[in-house]
């Protein structure tokens, strides 16, 4: 079922005011989507629910600070779910200290105090479509499926260093494409 983004925005405003009914309604409306994001990264239902639980804790705590001028609230919550899933993956990998992706990226945002140009954001899909393979698949698999470099190496039957190179090339080209996008959405030469 498509998400009613205006309704979601209203519910987030209610959550920001501390209204628990809004919070419950928001949970019912968006928890399955957050689980979909988390499951895509973790590939484990229990782990995905742990990530969703963490995400709603953060949403509850931060709704009052959500800046509505940044657009719809759904992508904001999707990003939290994604970061919580990455943190859960790191936690489960037991590779040293667990660092919280969501806090780290949020702190980076706090330092940077930047807001992207909406026209620039809309151009992302265009630029991804224009990206050559295998770079495009590497980036989309890392983002959408939570693939690590090792996962991608296995998928493409290539050494990890090759994957690192592909990611590097793809990301640099993506940045160049996005950096060259005119605010109207057309590419500059």
């Amino acid at each position: 079922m498509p998400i009613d983004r205006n309704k979601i925005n209203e519910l987030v405003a209610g959550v920001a005011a501390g209204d628990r009914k809004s919070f419950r309604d928001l949970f019912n409306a968006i928890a399955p989507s957050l689980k979909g994001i988390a499951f895509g990264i973790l590939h484990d239902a229990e782990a995905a629910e742990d990530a969703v639980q963490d995400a709603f804790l953060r949403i509850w705590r931060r709704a009052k600070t959500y800046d509505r001028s940044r657009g719809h609230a759904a992508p904001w919550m999707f990003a939290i779910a994604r970061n919580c899933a990455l943190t859960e993956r790191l936690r489960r990998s037991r590779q040293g200290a667990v660092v919280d992706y969501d806090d780290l990226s949020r702190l980076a945002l706090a330092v940077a105090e930047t807001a992207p140009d909406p026209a620039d954001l809309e151009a992302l899909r265009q630029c991804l479509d224009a990206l050559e393979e295998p770079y495009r698949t590497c980036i989309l698999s890392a983002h959408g499926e939570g693939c690590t470099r090792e996962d991608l190496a296995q998928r493409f039957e290539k050494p990890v260093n090759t994957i690192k190179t592909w990611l590097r090339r793809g990301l640099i080209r993506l940045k160049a494409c996005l950096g060259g996008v005119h605010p109207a959405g057309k590419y500059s030469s």
Partner: protein
Amino acid sequence: MTEEEEDDEVSAAEFILGTLSPPEMQVAALRALEDEAFAGRIAWWREHFAQLDTSPPEIPVSRGLWRKVDLLTRAVDRMDGHTPVEALVSIAKQKGRWKAAAFMTAALLGACIVAGLAYFHRHPPQGERYVAVVNEGGTQPALLLMVDVASHKVLVHSLAAEPPPGRSLELWYTAEGEAPRSLGVLSPHSSAAIGLDDLPLKLGDKPATLAISSEPPGGSPTGRPSGPMLYSGPLLPLK
């Protein structure tokens, strides 16, 4: 773009994608503190990649998940609504940047608090319950404790409590106007349950504090705190 700028761009993007190795990710996080331009790159990629999640697949959640979320958020509300992470973000917004150690501490504590609360919700006690986050000097959460009156147990989840070398950590319950009563010696870096045989059961009658002191190995020889109190926090009802 120079090669160095490319390195920064790729690190920032891979940080958001989650493809950096854990050590690389920590380096990138520290770098973001000292280099505002690098932090800006991370923010740029985060905002852009977020646009890809416009219509994620929906997967039904389990029936008990809302209850866990509801209890968890009510517990957080009873912690004055502020974790050290929130406080540091606030400082960051005022000052623009802050020291790396504080940043990493905040990030780690954020994860620890969530992990600790999640622990309790995976091992839920029943009936009348109280929760306390005991802090070091009012800043660093060291332990998360939940008192379960029905089962006469204190569930202890260690976050960052460290006994001084050659010493033990002892947990004390202090109701307002009364002397501290020992709840037992803690083992750090673990989750454990402590029996409550001697604890007064009317916990909600007076404001109370849970505190942790540094004691000789095995605990205080006097039945009262004999060493310095390292951590403390109020005991709050969890309804």
